[in-house]
């Protein structure tokens, strides 16, 4: 079977490829290559420039005047380390993200298992309800949570507690989607095998299913941490003033007031944290599923032997 892509001659030298580019730069894949790489550069370079200006030696965020770490810790007043509002915002962001992970992950994992195994009449509407936070604009969620915390559940009020409750509300669905994907790919055979060997549902769950779900649970915790750190709208609507401001809220108000490169610096720190947590989750996933992938590779090899 030959595919369209394979009809092009294989193993062309770099030279002939280059001369092909000169002769016809608008050939279909070439035009697509150009657009794709231009898009990637456009989507990433502005962020890199923002990171660059976090290391600027002067107060400007648009004219480069030499490298310094002044905005991270050097400046005794305005650096991320010394400016109490920035440091406080970072602490608040981390507090919300940690609480969010601790609450949303267990609830979401249970909901995912429940929705995947529950066959009753309530399963479909519950599933529907779980998907709703994905399609609801954040401003609608922000308005509704603010109103409910200030007029109905008045014992909560606006502030850190409200922010945590709000973050958990939009995070649960992410956990469910990630864990359920893994549940579907595992299938039910392991649990059924455990049941055949006499395990009760609870034992099958704790001894068989949960270990198999570990990579998805770790990944969803990291994703929740990342989306909570990056959230702006819900944190802003449920904030009760200066001391509950998170880093995104600081960035938002700073871009509209007189901004300093320290804003770029704290944004860079948070970006690195987000990317690190996701990279760790990805590594954890690879490590946890290594045996499976090896087994699968072995399986196909066995089958190949069988076919011969």
């Amino acid at each position, binding site marked *: 079977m030959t*595919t*369209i892509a394979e009809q092009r001659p294989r193993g062309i030298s770099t030279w002939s490829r280059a001369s092909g580019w000169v002769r016809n730069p608008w050939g*279909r894949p070439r*035009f*697509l290559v150009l*657009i*794709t790489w231009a898009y*990637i550069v456009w*989507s*990433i370079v*502005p*962020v890199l*420039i*923002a990171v660059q200006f976090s290391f600027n030696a002067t107060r*400007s965020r*648009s004219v480069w005047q030499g490298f310094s770490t002044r905005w991270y810790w050097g400046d005794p007043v305005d650096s991320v380390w010394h400016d109490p509002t920035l440091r406080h915002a970072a602490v608040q962001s981390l507090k919300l993200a940690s609480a969010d992970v601790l609450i949303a992950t267990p*609830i979401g994992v*249970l*909901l995912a298992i*429940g929705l995947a*195994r*529950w*066959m009753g009449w309530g399963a479909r509407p519950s599933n529907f*309800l*779980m998907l709703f936070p994905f*399609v*609801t*604009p*954040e*401003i*609608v*969620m922000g*308005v*509704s*949570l603010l*109103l*409910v915390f200030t*007029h109905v559940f008045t014992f909560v009020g606006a502030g850190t507690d409200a922010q945590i409750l709000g973050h*958990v*509300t939009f995070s*649960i669905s992410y956990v469910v989607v990630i864990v359920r994907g893994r549940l579907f790919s595992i299938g039910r055979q392991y649990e059924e095998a455990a049941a055949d060997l006499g395990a009760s*549902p609870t034992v099958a769950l704790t001894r068989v299913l949960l270990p198999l779900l570990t990579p998805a649970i770790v990944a969803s915790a990291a994703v929740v941490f*990342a989306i909570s*750190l*990056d959230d*702006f709208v819900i944190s802003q*609507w449920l904030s009760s003033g200066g001391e509950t401001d998170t880093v*995104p809220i600081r*960035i*938002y108000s700073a*871009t*509209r007031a007189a*901004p300093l490169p320290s804003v770029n610096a704290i*944004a*860079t720190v*948070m*970006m690195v944290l*987000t*990317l690190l947590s*996701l990279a760790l989750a990805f590594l954890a996933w690879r490590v946890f599923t290594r045996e499976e992938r090896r087994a699968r590779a072995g399986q196909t090899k066995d089958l190949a032997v069988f076919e011969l």
Partner: protein
Amino acid sequence: MYRRWLWPGFALPGILWLVVLFVVPFYAVVAVAFGTVDPILSQPVPIWSPLQWNVGWIVEVLHRFAPGGTFFGPSVRTVEYVASSLALCLLIGYPVAYYIARHGGRMRSLLLVLIILPLWISYLMRMLAWVNLLATDGYVNRFLTFTHVLSQPREWLGGEPSTVVLALVYGYIPYLILPLFAALDRIDRSHLEAARDLGASPLSTFLHVTLPLSKTGILGGAVLITLPMFGDYYTPNIVSGTPQTSMIGNQIDLFFHGGPQPTIGAGITVVLALFLTVLMAYYMWTIHRASRDVAAV
């Protein structure tokens, strides 16, 4: 009995959470929008029973949405911005997704990581990046004056609609490319070969096979970015911050955070949510029809 209640029991905490903190709050918005305002404290008083709803405020809000009202301009502007951003996103995003799905080759994983990367960089950080670039003495102005495209620096951040549209495209396009890629990647290559074998030119193969088969991805991605764009208020605030570029989300923001009149704010939120529900229903209906057509074939 134990087995029967085991799985619903697992789902219970999550469902309760979503009912108490997602469904009830949304109903609270409706109750405030159809409620009254305390004349002394000027605080909104929600009315929970639909039988006692006060329609006065919502009628007032609807009046302002009509041509000549204060919300008419922002609504038209919102639709304009969202429509042009969506068109630009598709124009840029479709070729990119197509290239990675069809011609990615060995670079495929790398390209996918680079496409996903912006999703994991905070939206505010990415907007901040453009605020730096578009400043009066920023790189964009310096490049444009250096190449003599502009004779003097332009105030990109002073209320330019094009800046807002650019920021929206920049902010939301990664969310469109992924579903597009997934849809294009799913297309069975044998369909394309069949078209080519039957004598279709590359262009007509694309128009009659690839494009229709990727329709669900286009629609899904479009919905995924359109819904949050309609509720956006921070993007125009960050890159422009003037009333000339104010969107409907900014009106909601204003009535809660500016001069607080939550009843009117809740009214706009209800109107916006209804409008988005209609959009969503149209999308579900198209998807339903498409899957029925596939089943019929």
